[in-house]
């Protein structure tokens, strides 16, 4: 990647570290995210994604490190950051005992928008929530809550959106609509950082950052991350896939073996070694060379982060 000029950088942090009760949750994280792009933030559970997002918007104070968010210092200019960042929490955190309209008007007033009622009305129309405008937020289904939360986030026209697992527990149709909107925002110049566990969502991002257990393990586009993983993969079909999985799981040459429906995904970094494994296990199985997926790359990364403490199986 070329070094873009500073104006094109939304998030620029260096050496971010957060320790809770002696446990390092984020370790020496350096991130540089370009403006007006959708950045996927991936990593296993407990890998420090939420903690990082909270440090970026000033909700947590890093124990070490420095940096800027939208050009404002994350340590000293929290107020400016809050004004220009929309943060959507993992758990629905608008007021369940206020109606949709009341929630949106509250947000508009806090941000000092000139016409809070008009702004709320506009947002309700954009969200397609006219019929529910006077319904309590707590009575909405998961999908509608998520739409409302996003609507509230973008209402004050932030320059940066931080979305923490926004689509957890939301049906595929609502997820697709959600991502269409995110792309619209990015096209309008908004920067988006979205954490997720879903591979299909990761592939919808312009760029991906993968962190595990506090360390940034990979950063780039989906293709770049797959290429960088250096994996070679086979899809294997056959009768007793479970036995083969167990056998390959103990094979030191195999990086990753995982079932995918009626097939097995086998990956390794050394092509020659993997070919040898394939040759040894052809009896009763069909080995088809395959392109590695993003998920293959992530699982390999995750295993690497564990220092080979156990392969995906």
């Amino acid at each position, binding site marked *: 990647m070329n070094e873009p000029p500073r104006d094109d950088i939304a998030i620029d942090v260096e050496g971010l570290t957060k320790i809770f009760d002696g446990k390092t949750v984020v370790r020496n994280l350096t991130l540089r995210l370009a403006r007006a792009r959708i950045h996927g933030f991936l990593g296993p559970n407990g890998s420090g994604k939420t903690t990082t997002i*909270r440090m970026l*918007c*000033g*909700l*947590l*104070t890093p124990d070490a490190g420095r940096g800027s968010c939208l050009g404002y210092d994350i340590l000293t200019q929290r*107020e400016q950051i*809050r*004004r220009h*960042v929309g*943060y959507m*929490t993992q*758990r*629905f*955190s*608008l*007021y*369940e005992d206020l109606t949709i309209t009341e929630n949106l008007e509250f*947000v508009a007033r*806090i*941000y*000092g928008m000139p016409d809070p009622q008009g702004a709320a009305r506009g947002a309700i129309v954009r969200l397609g929530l006219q019929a529910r405008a006077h319904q309590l937020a707590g009575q909405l289904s998961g999908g509608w809550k998520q739409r409302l939360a996003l609507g509230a986030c973008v209402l004050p026209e932030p320059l940066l959106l931080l979305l923490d697992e926004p689509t957890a527990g939301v049906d595929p149709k609502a997820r697709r609509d959600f991502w269409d909107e995110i792309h619209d925002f990015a096209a309008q110049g908004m920067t988006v950082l979205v954490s997720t566990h879903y591979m299909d969502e990761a592939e919808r991002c312009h760029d991906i950052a993968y962190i595990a257990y506090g360390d940034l393990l990979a950063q780039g586009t989906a293709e770049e991350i797959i290429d960088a993983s250096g994996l070679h993969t086979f899809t294997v079909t056959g009768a007793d896939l479970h036995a083969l999985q167990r056998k390959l799981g103990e094979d030191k040459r195999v990086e990753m073996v995982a079932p995918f429906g009626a097939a097995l995904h086998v990956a390794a970094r050394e092509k020659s070694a993997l070919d040898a494994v394939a040759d040894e296990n052809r009896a009763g199985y069909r080995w088809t060379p395959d392109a590695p997926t993003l998920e293959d790359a992530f699982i390999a990364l995750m295993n690497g982060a564990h220092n080979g403490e156990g392969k995906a199986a």
Partner: protein
Amino acid sequence: MSAPAPRKRGGAFRRFAAVFTKELIQLSRDRLTFATMLFIPLVQLLLFGYAINTDPKNLPAQIIMQDDSAFARSFVSALAATGYFNFSGTARSEEEADHAILANKAQFLIQIPANFGRDLVRGQKPAILVVADATDPTATGGAVAAINGAAASAFSRELVGPLARLQQSPPPFDLRIQKRFNPAGRTQLNIVPGLVGTILTLTMLIFTALSVTREIERGTMETLLAMPVRPVEIMLGKIAPYALVGALQMTIIMLAAIILFDVPIIGSVLLFVALTMLFIIANLSVGYTFSTVARNQLQAMQMSFFFFLPSMLLSGFLFPFRGMPVWAQRIGEILPLTHYMRIARGVMLKGAGVNDLSFDILALGAFTLAAMGLAVARFRQTLD
């Protein structure tokens, strides 16, 4: 899968023991509940055992001494000997004495008129005026009885020789005892203003004590903190609506006091309303401070009771303030209810004004500011 093992006898006990152990562990983790369990009985024991004295002695009294005869001095020392009076000062004028009683600095005024000694010797039956602040009839009852007793034998030493003829009963002077502010000694007059304060303390505390913890428990705090709003703005925004609720409560209680209990407001209604609002805000600030310290709503409730219990017992609401030992009075002086109790009784029953109540007003104001300052300082602007 093997079939589940048949239930052994004694299984019920083991399951009971499992629940019992779990509860014990949880209880030991919850230090505040633990402290409440120890603190509340201890406080009650100490207060009911030592602090509560419905026959208080050493009540502050002021003398308006207009005569300097030996008789006048004997009368004063006879009163002092009863142990009920603590002559804190000599008032130079009646206005000064009135102020002392309105400002709650004196509970008794004793006026010995000019030429008391001379008139006594002449057999003209001079009158001694004793003014008692009877807003709290329990507090003054014993002392009033003691005055009568002391009067009977006050001059046994002076009335000898030719004056022995005056040593008779009835005594050679008039004792006029004026129970001011509550001549009929109705307890309602004393209890109702106190109730205003007690009810407002409890409700106001709990309203705001839950306000921040509720946001934390429901998860809405994270969004609120991520928005550009300052701690002071959050605090004032959360306190203000309850101040309105408090105003409504005050109105209801006052209407009930006037209509049902026939309690007057002798002083300025405007002053009473203004000072009650100050008191309401003081309590809302305390509740809000608890809310920034407590980790959940239960803790906030416990803290409120921690505060409410001594307020009720040490403010002079249930028991005469002057009957409490000094340590209990010191604690009482910190509590807003103590000052409000004086303000409410002062304005409603005595017609006290701003000047008379300046100390209590300042104390309430200082308390409110301190609580708000603490709350803003304690308010966690991050999730660290």
